[in-house]
C-alpha cells in the first residue's frame, strides 16, 4: 500500500515538475520573444530613421546643388567631379541600341558633343541637338517651367526624344532617334533611371505661380489669321487647355490663357520654342518640324505644332497633366491647319481672277 502511495506521489511530483518545467520554459520563451521583438522594433525604427535622414540629406544636397548653381548658370558637371566615365555612358546607351524602334542613340553634353561612340552618320547631328535643347531648357527655367523631356517629330515622321540625365550623368542628355514611331518611353525611362543610380533626381519645381493664375486674351487686330481666332478660343475652352499662343517668327498674333501663364511669359515661351524648333529642324536637315512636345516636370505638356503654309505659323498649347489628351491638342491644331489650307486655296484661286479683273479695269481706264 505504502509502495503504491510512494509510486503515485513520485509520479505526481514528476508530472507536476514536468508541467512546471514546460510552463516555465514557455514563459521564458515568450519573454525572449518579447525581448527580441522589442530589439527588432528598436532596430527597425533606427533603420527607418537613418533612411529618413539619408533621404533628407540627399534632398538637401540636390536642392543645394540646384539652387547654388542656377544663378551662376553653371553646369553641375563643371563643379562636381563625380562625372560618369565614357565607358559608363556606353553602357547606358547600350540599353537602347538594338531595340527595334531605336535607330540611333547618343549621350551628348550641353555643347552638343557626343560622349558616346558615333558609329552612325547622323549621330553627330543628334548630339548637336542637345545644345539648343539646353538653351531652351534654361530659357523656360528662367520663365519658371522645368522641362523633363522633349519629343520631336519631323514632317517626314522622324521621331527624336531628348531626356536630360541625372545622377552622375548630370549635365548630359540622352538623344534617341526612331523612324516612323517614337522611341519607347519605358526604354528611355530605364536609361534615365540607370543614370540616376542611387542619387535622387534634382527636385524640379512644379508649375509655379508664373504659370498659373492669369486669365486673359490678346489678339492682334491686323496680321495673322484673324478669321480663326474665335474658333481657336472656343476650341481652347472645350479642350480644357491652360494656354494657347499662335504666331510666327516675327510676332505673336493670338495669345490666351485660362488660369495659366501671363501674356509676357506666354510670348517668351512661344519665341523660345519657335527658335528651338527652327534650330532642331536645321540640325536634323529633314522636311521641317511637325511637332515638339515638352513634358513638364509636373506632368503637363507644352506643345508646339507647325501650321504649314506661306506664313510658317506655329501654335503653342499648354495642358496640365491628365487635363487634356494629346489627341485633343492634335485635333485643335489639325482643325486650324485645315482651315488655313482652305483659306490659302481660296486666296490662290481668287488671286488670278483678281489679277484678271484688275488688268481689265486698268485696260478699260487706259482706253
Amino acid at each position, binding site marked *: 500500500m505504502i509502495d503504491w502511495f510512494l509510486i503515485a506521489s513520485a509520479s505526481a511530483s514528476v508530472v507536476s515538475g514536468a508541467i512546471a518545467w514546460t510552463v516555465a520554459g514557455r514563459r521564458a520563451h515568450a519573454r525572449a520573444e518579447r525581448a527580441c521583438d522589442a530589439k527588432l522594433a528598436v532596430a527597425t525604427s533606427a533603420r527607418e530613421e537613418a533612411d529618413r535622414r539619408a533621404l533628407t540629406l540627399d534632398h538637401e544636397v540636390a536642392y543645394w546643388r540646384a539652387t547654388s548653381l542656377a544663378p551662376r548658370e553653371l553646369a553641375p558637371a563643371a563643379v562636381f567631379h563625380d562625372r560618369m566615365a565614357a565607358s559608363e555612358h556606353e553602357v547606358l546607351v547600350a540599353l537602347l541600341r538594338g531595340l527595334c524602334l531605336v535607330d540611333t542613340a547618343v549621350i551628348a553634353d550641353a555643347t552638343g558633343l557626343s560622349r558616346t561612340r558615333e558609329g552612325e552618320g547622323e549621330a553627330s547631328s543628334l548630339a*548637336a541637338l*542637345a545644345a539648343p535643347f539646353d538653351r531652351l531648357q534654361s530659357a523656360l527655367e528662367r520663365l519658371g517651367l522645368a522641362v523633363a523631356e522633349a519629343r520631336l517629330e519631323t514632317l517626314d515622321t522622324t521621331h527624336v526624344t531628348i531626356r536630360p540625365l541625372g545622377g552622375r550623368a548630370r549635365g548630359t542628355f540622352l538623344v534617341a532617334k526612331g523612324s516612323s514611331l517614337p522611341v519607347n518611353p519605358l526604354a528611355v525611362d530605364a536609361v534615365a533611371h540607370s543614370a540616376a543610380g542611387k542619387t535622387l533626381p534634382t527636385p524640379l519645381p512644379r508649375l509655379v505661380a508664373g504659370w498659373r493664375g492669369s486669365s486673359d486674351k490678346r489678339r492682334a487686330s491686323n496680321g495673322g489669321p484673324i478669321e480663326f481666332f474665335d474658333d481657336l478660343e472656343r476650341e481652347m475652352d472645350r479642350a480644357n487647355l491652360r494656354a494657347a499662343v499662335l504666331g510666327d517668327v516675327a510676332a505673336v498674333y493670338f495669345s490666351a490663357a485660362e488660369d495659366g501663364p501671363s501674356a509676357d511669359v506666354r510670348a517668351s515661351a512661344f519665341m523660345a520654342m519657335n527658335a528651338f524648333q527652327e534650330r532642331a529642324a536645321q540640325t536634323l536637315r529633314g522636311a521641317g518640324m511637325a511637332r515638339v512636345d515638352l513634358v513638364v516636370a509636373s506632368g503637363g505638356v507644352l506643345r508646339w505644332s507647325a501650321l504649314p503654309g506661306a506664313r510658317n505659323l506655329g501654335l503653342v498649347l499648354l495642358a496640365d497633366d491628365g487635363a487634356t489628351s494629346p489627341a485633343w491638342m492634335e485635333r485643335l491644331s489639325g482643325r486650324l491647319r485645315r482651315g488655313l489650307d482652305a483659306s490659302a486655296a481660296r486666296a490662290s484661286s481668287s488671286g488670278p481672277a483678281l489679277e484678271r479683273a484688275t488688268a481689265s479695269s486698268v485696260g478699260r481706264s487706259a482706253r
Partner: protein
Amino acid sequence: MLNANRLAQIVARGNPDVIGLLVVDADGKVHASDSTSPEVMRAAIAMAVPLRDLIDRTAAELGCGEHSATLVEGREASFAIADVDGFRCVLVIGASGAAPGSLRADSLWLAARLRDEGGAS
C-alpha cells in the same frame, strides 16, 4: 545632284551659329564658300591649307589614322574642320557663343554629303 555651293548654303543660310563656311582642297583651291564676314573668310582661306597639313601630319604621327574631324574651341568662338575625301576639307567657323557640337555636326554633315555627291563642285 547638288553642287558644293548649294550644300554650303543649306548649312550656312539662316544658321545663327555659323559665320563662315569653306570647302577647300589641298592645293588651296576654294570649291565653295558662304560667309557673313569677308575678313574672317580671307583669314580662313589663308590658314586652311597649312592647318589641314598640320592636323593630317599630327594625326598620322600620333597613330590616330586618317583625319576625320577636328574641333578647335576658343574662349570666344570655335571652328570645326572635317575631311571630305583626303583632298578636300570643310571648315565651319562659328559665331560667338555657338555650340561647338553644332559646328562639328555641320562640318561632318557637309563632308558626308560632298562625299556622297562625288566630285560635284
